[in-house]
């Protein structure tokens, strides 16, 4: 590709690319993100390319392998334009029909359309699918229209025009005040005002400054940063460039989890393409501004999501946090002023510059502006990535977009904010999701994970799970976190294994409060949240474990037994054959029994039984 010597060259390039794309009669947008790949989108893409070629349609049909569309539950999925036709759970066998019916004859293949679970109606257009209808996909919506591996697709859609505008007609201070007026706050969890961070970093002493993109999305149950970086790496880069111009940085880093190989690959490719196009490196677009970006991979340490630990890791050191008496905007990476923002925060920047602060601030609540992406997962029907204006009630997200319970079991809670967040019961589902409201309720927006829990989820087990996670991930530098979490886990494990006492429960609360106050970094300070929030809203479950030695959800192994309902059992023998521990016995066509001595409670018999005859109590 030619080097863009100025903003006009960029405009010309965009126009040319748009014209190229207008030649096609139709476009198939197939999700080729990690999630859809896991469900088999790779073979669908291959089959589609072959079929299009076989029918000689290469000049008419544009096949675009895109990043995440969000509705992962329906993967592999595709949208065909014109017509906005949505097909889900597509297999390679469906491909010839899609080509001959939809692409050649504009007819819809009805069996591939989404069926609304309430009305039973087939829905043709993506925009009419309930999952998408209540969303505002400002950031995620771009994934569909760009090919993450092709810079020209991003440019054709107006990419880098915000950068051009900033470099040619704005002063750094103007950029900062635009971001400040927009009300953009950090999407990584803290919710710190982005514009204020930039202003402080610009004001900090020092010639060399850095910007960092935090793509170390460590919160289990959150994957929006992966999807944005994988699906639209250039929007993140453009955001970083604008930020670098505003604060006066020459070097940037993208710190990305090694568990996200596709995000690593796409961001590296984006950087090298941007460099070739003259959008990164020396004298960008002939403006005199120089800036470059490097990708650094994380190595599986959760604590590196914390800014000071992350910076230590970028320096090639052990990722231990340091006290933040001096902020990283003054002394960050290599002791120099550094602005660190999360992937989603950076991705919001070009839009704000192009459409203005007022456009952004028009969405959201009084103190939380714009849209936020949430990863809706767990025991909910429509799992996937959801983008809504800040302030949308939890109920809308879980029930209208998420479609409610996955299997008919009643939903009882949603866990937000990852290991630092908390579990909110259904009584709190009318809360508007914004930074303040969730934190007042004992949870947090955090990075945006929303794990839905139903009657089959044990809240004590969830608390134990998070404690085990955090104890494992604690870097061990400060005692309250290192020792406190260990003791808390011991008490909660005792409860889940039938050794809990009321006195220990009081001790648990006491230790939790100490860890909250005395820990060095945010990992420790927020670590007790899952315990405290489950105690606040689900104390009855703790009581059942302690007083009755019973796990109401049937999860805690020490407190449950597997048995066979003799009425429902048909004696088919499926469980008997499947049981790896030889704990099931019984004659053919006679009800079977489970030997409690031999049973390891692995649940295989229940997975295998087609008659729901295996009962857990």
């Amino acid at each position, binding site marked *: 590709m030619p080097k863009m010597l100025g903003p006009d060259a960029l405009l010309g390039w965009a126009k040319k690319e748009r014209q190229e794309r207008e030649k096609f009669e139709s476009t198939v947008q197939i999700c080729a993100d*990690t999630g859809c790949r896991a469900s088999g989108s790779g073979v669908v893409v291959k089959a589609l390319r072959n079929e299009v070629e076989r029918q000689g349609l290469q000049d008419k049909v544009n096949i675009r392998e895109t990043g995440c569309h969000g509705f992962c539950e329906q993967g592999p999925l595709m949208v065909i334009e014109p017509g906005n036709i949505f097909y889900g759970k597509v297999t390679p066998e469906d491909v010839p029909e899609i080509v001959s019916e939809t692409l050649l004859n504009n007819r819809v293949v009805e069996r591939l359309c989404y069926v609304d679970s309430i009305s039973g109606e087939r829905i043709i257009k993506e925009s009419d699918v309930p999952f998408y209808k209540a969303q505002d996909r400002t950031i995620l919506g771009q994934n569909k229209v760009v090919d993450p591996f092709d810079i020209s697709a991003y440019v054709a859609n107006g990419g880098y025009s915000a950068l051009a505008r900033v470099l040619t007609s704005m002063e750094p201070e103007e950029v900062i005040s635009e971001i400040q007026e927009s009300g953009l706050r950090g999407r990584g969890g803290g919710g710190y005002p982005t514009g204020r961070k930039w202003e402080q970093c610009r004001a900090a002493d020092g010639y060399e400054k850095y910007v960092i993109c935090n793509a170390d999305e460590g919160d289990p149950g959150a*994957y929006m940063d992966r999807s944005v970086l994988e699906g639209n790496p250039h929007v993140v880069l453009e955001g970083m460039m604008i930020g670098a111009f505003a604060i006066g940085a020459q070097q940037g880093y993208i710190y990305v989890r*090694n568990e996200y190989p596709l995000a690593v690959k796409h961001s590296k490719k984006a950087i090298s393409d941007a460099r070739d196009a003259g959008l990164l490196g020396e004298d960008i677009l002939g403006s005199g501004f120089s800036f470059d970006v490097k990708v650094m991979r994380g*190595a599986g340490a959760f604590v590196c999501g914390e800014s000071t630990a992350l910076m230590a890791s970028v320096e090639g050191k052990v990722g231990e946090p340091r006290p933040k008496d001096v902020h990283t905007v003054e002394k960050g990476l290599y002791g120099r002023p550094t602005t660190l923002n999360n992937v989603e925060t950076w991705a919001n920047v070009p839009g704000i510059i192009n459409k203005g602060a007022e456009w952004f601030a028009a969405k959201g609540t009084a103190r939380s502006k714009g849209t936020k992406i949430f990863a809706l997962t767990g025991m909910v029907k429509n799992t996937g990535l959801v983008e809504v204006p800040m302030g949308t009630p939890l109920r809308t997200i879980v029930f209208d977009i998420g479609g409610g319970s996955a299997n008919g079991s009643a939903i009882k809670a949603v866990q937000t904010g990852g290991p630092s967040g908390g579990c909110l019961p259904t009584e709190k589902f009318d809360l508007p999701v914004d930074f303040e409201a969730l934190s007042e309720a004992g949870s947090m927006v955090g990075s945006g994970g929303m794990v839905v829990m139903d009657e089959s989820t044990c809240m004590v087990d*969830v608390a134990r799970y998070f404690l085990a996670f955090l104890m494992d991930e604690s870097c061990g530098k400060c005692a309250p976190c290192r020792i406190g979490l260990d003791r808390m886990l011991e008490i909660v494990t005792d409860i889940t294994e039938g050794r809990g006492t009321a006195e220990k429960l009081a001790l648990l609360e006491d230790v939790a409060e100490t860890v909250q106050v005395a820990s060095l970094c945010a990992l420790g300070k927020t670590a007790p949240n899952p315990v405290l929030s489950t105690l606040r809203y689900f104390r009855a479950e703790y009581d059942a474990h302690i007083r009755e030695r019973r796990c109401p959800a049937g999860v805690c192994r020490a407190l449950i037994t597997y048995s066979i309902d003799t009425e429902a059992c048909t004696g088919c023998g499926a469980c008997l054959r499947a049981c790896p521990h030889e704990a099931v016995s019984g004659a053919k066509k006679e009800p079977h029994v489970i030997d409690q001595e031999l049973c390891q409670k*692995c649940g295989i018999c229940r*997975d295998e039984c087609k008659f729901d005859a295996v009962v857990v109590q």
Partner: protein
Amino acid sequence: MSTVHYAGILETVEGHPSELIEVLHDIQEESHYLPEDALRAVSEKLGVPLIEVFRVANFYKAFTLVPRGAHLITVCTGTACHVRGGSRLLDELSGQLNIAAGETTSDGQFTLEAVNCLGACALGPIVVLDGKYYEHMTASKLRKLIESTRAQDNEDSAYA
């Protein structure tokens, strides 16, 4: 033997201490673990004391100082997978293979790993065998997967 593997990697680095984690990743991708002589060579090349190289290799979970088995099974234990029974899968595999997470079977066939989150939460529980993702896993599907992988290996060795 391993020297051959990582010599090329060391040639591409500039020799700055900040490259440490990246270099360790590259070596591990080639050798599937971090051999001692590699750590020594990295220490020399980047000018980072060996004890610091070792500390970094130990601190980060992605690195392993012992060789991995022929097959790598990764079980996602993220929250979304956990509420759908992911941790039960890990217990089950542990029992079936008779090793704990992070260990390798005595015949060198399987290494079992638990990972915090793979970011494919909507499809959980997720298990990855040799880079291939298996979605909506159950204990019984997993047992069959291991058995068929073993059977495939036996077949391959019979023809070898």
